[in-house]
Every structure is written in structure tokens, then in C-alpha cells.
């Protein structure tokens, strides 16, 4: 197995070749039970404690379809602008691999529940690309293997494997795009933007946790290249195990560069499965497609067809959420955020939180400052997300209110936030307990200002001469004098008033 593949520079590859992409995304549904049996689906249970005769493939066990699984599949199809089948069947996909104890996966073959749709995705440069959807079909997840022996914990070199079937049978929807052409150099960005848009959509539908790092959403990327201007697609490779948005972009980019190097050297692309390595940023050869990839699909005899009535489909259509891209535009305009501010909010995963904070009475600017400013900064520093701190929209709205009412200044508000994160109570409780309150007594502030001006005549003179920036040093000292318990804006106002050229 060669792991030192040649690559050519990406721009050079794009000058000579057009890439074609095809993306397959598997998403685990968040149903309480498996697709064909009543076993629970919770993540992280003891191995083989969420299994039964059906999902273990014991003789005589009969599957029954989870109605929520079908509903979720139809809603996903509708949200992707697909047609919904009047009538469709499950099929057996036969293969020998210990992750499926039945020796087949119950899937759908030539009769997917949803087909012929599209999803418009917005790229980072602001342009839009329409991703055509080939199909979305229902199937079941496989078990998880632990490979023992060998040095790497990988399947290669392992002496034997240990299998946990808790995941086997969890409802899975596979969403397959049509070949994506005409992307040119933007192919990696289109791939990433599509997976991101799909994730947002599935989250809005509330059909899955869509946590790529936990494997509840997984992406396989088919990539081929053809000489510029050619009509016939090149031979494609399928890169598996691409499980973050960044990896989707990198893996597509890498495959384009690698394939270009192979073709430039006069070689040909092998149709094969490749594995993505997050750490080194390369793909390596898996196994070539072969005769053994004949899955001998046939209609599942143990399950009757699914035939959703048009009334049922219409009922489910009514449950679709506002499309995420449309919702973001609406909220951005309502909140008056710039494009850059909105992007920070989205990247911080704070859209819902800000919406709730504004509903709880905060100003959009105040809500943004906390969620995509202070809390996002802390989250980044600690490798968390903004929702991990136990801070609620109600907390932020209350804190914003305390600042607006003049009880706290910014630095005090941050101390209050420390207290809220530490679990000391609501912002008001924390401010009370910690004794944080701006001194409202102007005479104390005025005395401090006079004292500082008297002690810093050279600086005061500069301010009198119109160098207003110099006032900062005085404000700092006044705040120190007041032990931080003063309104800095008010201190500045007082200093400037006292040092105004026309003041005597």
C-alpha cells in the first residue's frame, strides 16, 4: 500500500482538469428506538445491552418498521425538495462483514422513499450553488468494531475484532447527490458548504443530533476529474470516513491534486475506496471495487411496502421548519447585524440563543456582544461551545438589563458572568452577593476626578490643549480610585467637562 502518493499543486490541477463530485451523507435519526425493533438508541450504553433477536439477526426474528423513522425520512425528503414515493420497499443488501450480524443490511435499492430534489447552498464568497439530490433512502446503521492486536488499533494487522451491536439497527437516512459539475476550483468549498447546509437543515428538522464528531452524521466523498472541456466523467474514487466540515473540504482538495498527479504521469485512476486521515491530511488506498461488490439486492420479504398517502405527506409538509438560510437572513435583518457579525454569530452556534435572548428582552446588540463576543471567546479558549457554560438566554438578558440600567459597568458585568458560569445564581444574585454595583453618588466620583486631575497636571494640560486621547490615562486612574465601581463613561464625561478649554 503506497502512502506517499504524488500530488500536484491545486491551482495547477484545476488549470488542466474539471472536478466532478458526488456526496453521500449518512445521518442517524434521533428516534427513541431502532428502525426495525424496539431497542433503545442511546449513545454510550454498555456494549450489547441495547440488542434483541431482531437486531442480532437471530433465526425467526421479524422486523417491524418504526413509524417515526418513516416520518423523519419523508420530512427530510420534503425539506430537500424531493418527490416522495407513492409506494416503495425495503431491500436486503447482502454482504459478509461482522458489523451486521444478519449478513445483510436492510436498506432501500431502486425504490427510495424520496428522490429528485435539490438544496441551494451559499458559499463563503457569497455565491450560491444548487446541489441536486438524487435520492434519500431509509436503512439501518451497523455495529461498532474494536480491532485487537496490531499496533494501530486499525483493522489492518489486527488479530481479531470485538463487536458491539448497540448501534446495529439505528435508523439511518442516506442522502445522495447527483454528480456536481461546473464547480471548478470551488469544488472543495461546495462540498463543505453542502454538508454544512445539510447539517443545519437536519438540525432545524430536529430529526438527528447531527454530531459529526460522534458519528451521527458521516460523509463519503466521490471525486473524479476530467480534462478541461471533456464531457465524459473520469473514474471516481470514494473517500470514506470524512467526519468534519473541514475534512470534507480538505479531502476533496487532496483527491483532486492526487488524481491530477496520477493522470499527469500517464497513469489511470483506480476505482476504489480510499480512507481519509485527519492527522496527515491525505487519503490512502482502501480496497478496489471488485466482483465481491455484488450485493445481490432483493426486496425484503419480512417487511411490507411503505405507501405514504398524499394526505400524510401533506400533513408532514406542514411540519417543516423555515429553511435555515432564509431564517438567518430574516433574523440578520431584524437584528441589524452586518454580514460579518452574522457570520460570527452563526460560527459560534449562537443563532437560537440570541433569538431567545432578544425575546427575553435584551437588545440585539447586547445579546450579540455576550454570545458571539465574550462567551464565544471563552468557549474558544476552553475548547467548548457557548452552550456548554450553563448560561441561559434569560441570564444574558438580565445581565444586559443590569448594564443598561446603569447598575453595572462592562467590567463588572464580566465579573457577574464569571459568577453565573461558576453556578452562583442569576446575574442579580451574583451582583448582590459579590457586592458589585456602580457608585451612583456623583459627589464621590467628582471628588475622585478632582483628586486625579490635581495629581496629574501635565496630563490634564494636554487634555485642555485638545488632546482628548490623553484623557484615557486619567479615566483609568479615576476608576482605580473608585475601585472599579464607577461608570467609566460618566468619569470621562466629568473629566472632559472639567478640562474643557472654556472651563475656568
Amino acid at each position, binding site marked *: 500500500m503506497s502512502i506517499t502518493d504524488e500530488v500536484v499543486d491545486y491551482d495547477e490541477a484545476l488549470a488542466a482538469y474539471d472536478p466532478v463530485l458526488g456526496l453521500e451523507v449518512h445521518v442517524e435519526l434521533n*428516534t*427513541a*428506538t431502532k428502525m426495525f*425493533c*424496539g*431497542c*433503545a438508541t442511546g449513545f454510550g450504553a*454498555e*456494549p*450489547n*445491552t*441495547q*440488542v*434483541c*433477536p431482531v437486531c*442480532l439477526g437471530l433465526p425467526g426474528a421479524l422486523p*417491524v*418498521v*418504526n*413509524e*417515526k*423513522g*418513516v416520518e423523519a425520512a419523508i420530512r427530510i425528503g420534503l425539506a430537500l425538495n424531493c418527490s416522495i414515493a407513492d*409506494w416503495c*420497499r425495503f431491500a436486503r443488501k*447482502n454482504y*459478509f*462483514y*461482522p458489523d451486521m*450480524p444478519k449478513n445483510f443490511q436492510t436498506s432501500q435499492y431502486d425504490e427510495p422513499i424520496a428522490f429528485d430534489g435539490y438544496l441551494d447552498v451559499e458559499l463563503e464568497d457569497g455565491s450560491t450553488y444548487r446541489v441536486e439530490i438524487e435520492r434519500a433512502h431509509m436503512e439501518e446503521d451497523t455495529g461498532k*468494531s*474494536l*480491532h485487537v492486536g496490531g499496533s494501530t488499533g486499525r*483493522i*489492518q*494487522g*489486527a*488479530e*481479531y*475484532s*470485538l*463487536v*458491539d*451491536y448497540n448501534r446495529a439497527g439505528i435508523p439511518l437516512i442516506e442522502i445522495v447527490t447527483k454528480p456536481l459539475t461546473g464547480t471548478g476550483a470551488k469544488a472543495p468549498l461546495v462540498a463543505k458548504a453542502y454538508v454544512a447546509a445539510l447539517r443545519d437543515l437536519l438540525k432545524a428538522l430536529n430529526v438527528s443530533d447531527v454530531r459529526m464528531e460522534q458519528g451521527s452524521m458521516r460523509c463519503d466523498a466521490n471525486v473524479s476529474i476530467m480534462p478541461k472541456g471533456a464531457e465524459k466523467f473520469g473514474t471516481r474514487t470514494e473517500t470514506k470516513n470524512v467526519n468534519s466540515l473541514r475534512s470534507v473540504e480538505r479531502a476533496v482538495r487532496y483527491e483532486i491534486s492526487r488524481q491530477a498527479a496520477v493522470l499527469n504521469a500517464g497513469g489511470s485512476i483506480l476505482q476504489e475506496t480510499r480512507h481519509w486521515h485527519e492527522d496527515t491530511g491525505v487519503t490512502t488506498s482502501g480496497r478496489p471495487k471488485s*466482483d*465481491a461488490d*455484488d450485493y*445481490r439486492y*432483493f*426486496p*425484503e*420479504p419480512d*417487511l*411490507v*411496502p*411503505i*405507501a*405514504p398517502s398524499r394526505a400524510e405527506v401533506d400533513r408532514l409538509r406542514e411540519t417543516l421548519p423555515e429553511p435555515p438560510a432564509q431564517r438567518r437572513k430574516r433574523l440578520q435583518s431584524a437584528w441589524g447585524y452586518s454580514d460579518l457579525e452574522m457570520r460570527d454569530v452563526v460560527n459560534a452556534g449562537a443563532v437560537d440563543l440570541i433569538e431567545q435572548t432578544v425575546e427575553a428582552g435584551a437588545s440585539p446588540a447586547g445579546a450579540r456582544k455576550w454570545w458571539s463576543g465574550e462567551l464565544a471567546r471563552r468557549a474558544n479558549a476552553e475548547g467548548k461551545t457557548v452552550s456548554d457554560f450553563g448560561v441561559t438566554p434569560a441570564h444574558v438578558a438580565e445581565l444586559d438589563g443590569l448594564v443598561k440600567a446603569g447598575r453595572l459597568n462592562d467590567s463588572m458585568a464580566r465579573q457577574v458572568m464569571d459568577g453565573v458560569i461558576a453556578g452562583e445564581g442569576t446575574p442579580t444574585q451574583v451582583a448582590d452577593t459579590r457586592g458589585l454595583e456602580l457608585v451612583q453618588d456623583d459627589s464621590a466620583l467628582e471628588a475622585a476626578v478632582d483628586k486625579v486631575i490635581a495629581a496629574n497636571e501635565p496630563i490634564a494640560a494636554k487634555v485642555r490643549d485638545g488632546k482628548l486621547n490623553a484623557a484615557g490615562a486619567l479615566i483609568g486612574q479615576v476608576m482605580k480610585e473608585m475601585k472599579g465601581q464607577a461608570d467609566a463613561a460618566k468619569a470621562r464625561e466629568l473629566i472632559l467637562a472639567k478640562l474643557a478649554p472654556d472651563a475656568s
Partner: protein
Amino acid sequence: MSSLSRDEVAHVAMLARIQLSDEELDKLAGQLDQIVGYVGQVNEIAADDVPPMSHPLPLVNVTRPDEVRPSLTQEQALANAPASDLGRFEVPRILDED
């Protein structure tokens, strides 16, 4: 009427992980060809107006509510496993050494 070749039988046997000797292949190829021919008589009767069926019952949409039911215990699940370790089924090496 299409006939089933010896090579096709060998291919299907490979897919099904059934090891057949040359004699068995000769014998089964003939027998399977007869079976396919016999079943193929259905095609002579069923015209285009008879849709293919995969299930004898005229039922659709048999589903169950999404409610958790008891699973087996780990001990029960592993009871018939030839080998197990760490609460998991132990299976032989998956990839050949190379």
C-alpha cells in the same frame, strides 16, 4: 428461456461464501438451471399487466410506535457466541494478512 451457466453458479457461490468442488459445481449448475427454468414458467403466464410482487399479502404501512421495549441482557446476547470478550462478540481477523 435463459440458462444458468456453470461460471454464474461459481460466482454466486463465491458471493455467498459457499465453497464448491468441481463435481458439485457440475451437478448444481445443472440442477439450478432446471429450477430457474421451472420458476421461469411464471413469466409465460404473467403478462405485462401483472405487476411483479415481493410479498404474498396485500398489506402496506405496517409500523409500530417509537416506544422502547426491553432488550436482552448482555449475558443473554452473548450466550451463544462462540467467543466473547469485554462484553462484545469476538470475531476472527477480518482482513487477510498482507
